[in-house]
């Protein structure tokens, strides 16, 4: 028997993942020694871990494009850009969680460990250049989020949300896996570059297996980004999950799934582009329409934001459909922008949550801005940004998405996008109206949490900053574009 030759892999490729995983191990151990009353220490530990990970991301940045592990992981600027986004997202999520989970009575240390584990999953997902690692990263991320969705064990809504999300998520993983298997069957490889080379060298354009595989992959990914017709889980999961997790999963997993989607479709399957563009076109258009129109009818603000998130997935898909450098850059930029406006809006909702009061109905916001003018203004900024009006970041993000679509000559899609933004004006302004015009109501005292108010102000500031001085962020997104 010959001993197995193990070549030492280039660990720099997965340095951020390794650093963060080790930190999570440490946190799990440390949690055992932290008394019940001081679980906030876990949040601080989590933030430190994220900071260390951020440093490691910048360290890896100087190495340029590197790949390792039989070319199944790649660390390029595209991946590192997303990794930084996840670190920001997770940091904001931890800040808004500390007080909130104490109110919900689920103040356990595992919350932070699992949250950070899902970040590890996302990091793997954006670096993955092999279908096997793509799948594993996706499962890692998704499993953590399922657990976090059901984290309020004593709340039936949370349980229901987790179960629905889990069952449908498992189903969609099956679809993706099936698509991957067919892809492997045709090309004989799971590596995205090898698949691309094989498809470029052999004509498989009208191979029914390839078409089936593309359809299955799109179905699975559409589920992960909550695009119509695979969006049914989103409102229930968003409503039932702890609000801090809703904020997190409206951004993080969505961004990670978009990154993987870009890598799989633009790198591995450019040959099949006419096929998948046709399907994505429909998905994008119908997502924008359904998401924005159904959102109008919602009375629960978490559900409303869930539908608006479905609409946003439709907008972002425009960048994927364009498939140009400009298109990819606009996706990256929009994900960055979306973090601040979405987490900002959700953290205002959390501000209203206190023992005995849910505070996630739109009517709970009655007179909110009159009682708390500065926080009300922040919420208004988030709403304006979600609509996509200047001078906020949402405007810049949408401008680039629409521009990318127009540049790639998808005029109808851009028109639908603009029209649906007008529809969204209606329901976002409904919230603004409730805040500014309706009578103040009883029991609107806020939870005193400096971390939470800091996040609200920080997100508002970031939204305005990107909206008014976008140049730096745009060039960062352009620099991080995949080599296509």
């Amino acid at each position, binding site marked *: 028997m010959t001993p197995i030759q193990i070549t030492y892999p280039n660990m720099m490729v997965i340095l951020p993942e390794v650093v963060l995983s080790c930190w999570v191990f440490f946190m799990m151990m440390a949690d055992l020694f932290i008394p019940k009353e001081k679980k906030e220490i876990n949040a601080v530990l989590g933030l430190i871990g994220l900071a260390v990970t951020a440093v490691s991301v910048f360290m890896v940045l100087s190495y340029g494009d590197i790949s390792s592990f039989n070319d199944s992981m790649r660390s390029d600027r595209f991946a590192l850009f997303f990794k930084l986004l996840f670190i920001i997202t997770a940091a904001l999520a931890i800040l808004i969680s500390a007080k909130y989970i104490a109110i919900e009575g689920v103040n356990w240390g595992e919350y932070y460990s*699992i949250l950070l584990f899902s970040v590890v999953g996302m990091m793997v997902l954006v670096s993955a250049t092999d279908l096997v690692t793509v799948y594993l990263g996706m499962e890692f991320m998704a499993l953590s989020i399922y657990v976090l969705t059901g984290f309020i064990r004593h709340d039936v809504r949370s349980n229901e949300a987790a179960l629905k999300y889990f069952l449908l998520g498992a189903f969609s993983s099956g679809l993706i896996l099936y698509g991957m298997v067919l892809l492997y069957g045709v090309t004989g*490889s799971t590596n995205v570059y090898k698949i691309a080379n094989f498809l470029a060298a052999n004509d498989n354009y009208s191979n029914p297996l390839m078409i089936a595989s593309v359809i299955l992959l799109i179905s699975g990914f559409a589920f992960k980004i909550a695009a119509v017709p695979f969006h049914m889980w989103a409102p229930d999961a968003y409503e039932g999950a702890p609000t801090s997790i809703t904020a997190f999963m409206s951004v993080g997993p969505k961004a990670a799934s978009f990154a993987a989607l870009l890598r799989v479709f633009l790198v591995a399957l450019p040959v099949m582009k006419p096929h998948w563009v046709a399907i994505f076109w429909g998905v994008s258009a119908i997502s924008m329409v359904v998401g924005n129109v159904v959102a109008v009818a919602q009375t629960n603000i978490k559900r409303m934001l869930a539908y608006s998130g479905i609409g946003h997935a439709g907008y972002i898909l425009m960048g994927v459909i364009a498939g140009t450098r400009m298109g990819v850059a606009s996706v990256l930029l929009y994900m960055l922008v979306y973090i601040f406006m979405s987490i900002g809006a959700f953290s205002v909702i959390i501000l209203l949550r206190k023992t005995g009061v849910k505070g996630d109905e739109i009517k709970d916001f009655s007179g909110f801005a009159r009682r708390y003018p500065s926080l009300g203004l922040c919420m208004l900024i988030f709403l304006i940004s979600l609509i996509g009006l200047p001078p906020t970041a949402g405007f810049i993000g949408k401008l680039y998405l629409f521009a990318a679509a127009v540049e790639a000559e998808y005029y109808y899609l851009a028109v639908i996008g603009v029209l649906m933004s007008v529809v969204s004006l209606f329901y976002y302004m409904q919230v603004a109206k409730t805040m500014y015009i309706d009578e103040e109501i009883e029991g609107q005292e806020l939870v005193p949490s400096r971390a939470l108010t800091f996040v609200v102000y920080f997100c508002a500031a970031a939204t305005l900053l990107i909206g008014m001085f976008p140049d730096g962020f745009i060039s960062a997104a352009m620099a991080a574009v995949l080599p296509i």
Partner: protein
Amino acid sequence: MELLLFYIFGGVAVLASLGLVTGKNPVHSALFMVVVFFVIAALFVLLGAEFLAAAQILVYAGAIMVLFLFVIMLLRLQPEELRNTSRHAFQKFFGIVLSLVLMAQIALIVRGGFFKGAKGNYTPEVVSGFGGNTEAVAAVLFTDYLFPFELTSLILLMAMVGAVVLTKKELK
């Protein structure tokens, strides 16, 4: 000989799967599933993959399905409670039609010879060069697929912590 065995095992697999989905009693369905795992293991043996066959039985038939049975028994699901599925008649019909369509598609694809991808490297000669199936699996697992292998252990750790958090009776 091999072909004959393949048809026998394949036939049993198909019949057992049918029993699995049509069975009224959840315990019977679970047992049919065990049968399916067994014949799949037998098919692995036919392909010369003894290690996978043993792992298949050990993991799926020996561990996972036992836990399934365990849960079914603890819930004491009686057939009567599950029979109230008349409102799913439409879904049932739709499901049968769709699976027939899917089967026709797969048959067409296989018949049509669309699998024209590169053949894999692991011929019987290559595998025996490693010193056997087990060694070949190990060699691939610890070189090419090292990262997915390690990542899986992280996923399992996360899933374990998550399951404990969600179900443990009292948390400190």
